[in-house]
């Protein structure tokens, strides 16, 4: 069987690989600086350093799902396929960071609280958020028709995002143990500086990941469209 050459334009020259390299260098640098320079915490000692990965990844999770919401709404409004692919990419990256947040939180919770898991408001709502977006990604996996997949997952994405504050509120009323956010005025300025630097590092990595997933999805769709054109007797 001879292979059909598909007329898919692969993006060859682009600045994105440089951005990716920058993102990871920035991440490594700010992690290293944070770990070396920050003083040991009075109660937690060196365990506190998990904060530099746990907290930024929790922030980035929320941000990714906000990106899903924005692109889902824009898709339903303007019906451009790229918006759907971007929403899907953001959902995948968000779910990854969400899983990372949960695992890192457990690793931190075990030595400080003495348990891997507790049914606290923020832990529980983070887990529910994870499950909602696992549902979103499963829906995408089970539907082949592109327009249907796009419209349905946009609806599911929007409903899921709207539910986030309601889930959080309901679980918070249910019970709470997680410490309240520390405000910058109550902690050492070095903590704040490197927490912020690492948040930016995670942000750059998130943007790079979403971009990479989006490009892959775009190429896949182009290949599908080209294959269809060939099947219909086109080029």
């Amino acid at each position, binding site marked *: 069987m001879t292979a059909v050459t598909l007329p898919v334009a692969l993006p060859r020259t682009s600045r994105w690989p440089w951005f990716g390299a920058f993102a990871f260098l920035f991440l490594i640098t700010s992690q290293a600086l944070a770990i070396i320079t920050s003083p040991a915490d009075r109660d937690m000692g060196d365990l506190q350093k998990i904060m530099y990965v746990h907290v930024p990844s929790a922030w980035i999770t929320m941000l990714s799902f906000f990106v899903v919401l924005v692109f889902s709404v824009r898709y339903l409004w303007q019906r451009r396929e790229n918006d759907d692919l971007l929403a899907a990419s953001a959902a995948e990256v968000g779910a990854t960071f969400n899983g990372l947040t949960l695992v890192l939180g457990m690793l931190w919770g075990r030595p400080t609280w003495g348990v891997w898991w507790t049914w606290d408001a923020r832990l529980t709502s983070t887990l529910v958020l994870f499950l909602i977006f696992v549902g979103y990604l499963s*829906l995408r996996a089970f539907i082949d028709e592109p327009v249907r997949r796009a419209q349905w997952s946009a609806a599911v994405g929007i409903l899921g995002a709207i*539910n986030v504050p*309601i889930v959080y509120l309901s679980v918070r009323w249910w019970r709470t143990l997680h410490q309240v956010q520390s405000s910058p005025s109550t902690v050492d300025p070095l903590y704040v500086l490197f927490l912020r630097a690492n948040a930016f590092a995670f942000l750059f990595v998130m943007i790079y990941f979403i971009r990479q997933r989006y490009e892959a999805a775009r190429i896949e769709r182009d290949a599908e469209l080209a294959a269809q054109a060939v099947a219909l007797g086109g080029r």
Partner: protein
Amino acid sequence: MGRSADWGRIRAIAWKDLTAERRSKAGFYSVAALGITILVLFGFALGPDTRALRDAAVGALWLAVFFAGVLTFNRSYQVELDSGALDTLLLYGGGRWTIFTGKLLANLAFVMMMLVIVLIVGAVLFQVEVPAQWPTLLAVLALGVIGLVTLGTFYAAMASRSRAREVLLPLLLFPMMVPVLLAAIQASKALFGADLMQESGAWMRLLVAYDLVFLIITHLAFEYVIEV
């Protein structure tokens, strides 16, 4: 195309669904029987200590309604798909949200009837005494069922037309139902304990807010879901 025309459509669809259910009967009884079966299984899992059963009764009851309800929602679209009726339904003029409202009302009636049966059986099996504030409890039950049926009917419009409907609907629906489950269980528990802390009110307000938010959003989004 006025308001009365929309109402006519809604009524026609709800009536059609309920008539089909009434004539076949098998659907309703099997779903109600499943609800009771789940209750019995919870009894085995948690019992036979009477106090433990009584404490867990509310949660077991709600989960039984959730699990049995899921089967209802997919069926509601499945009967349309099997005979190719959904396409014809979509060809009729007027807003398509009326299809959703009609199905929602039919499912609401269906799940409410099931809830009554499951509730009576559950009260007997788990030895629950009817609390003094039973009218408030009825309101909590109604609000919880409205939340369940609204999202269930909405997600089933997608799940029933996908490849993996059995797993997809609960996977999409249950995480979204966490606020309803928590609020319904906590409010019911408070009422069974005579609501000394007056906490059922806050949970009921949460249920009302949840129901309103998702009734509005699902009605707006249904057009996008059903057209493809």
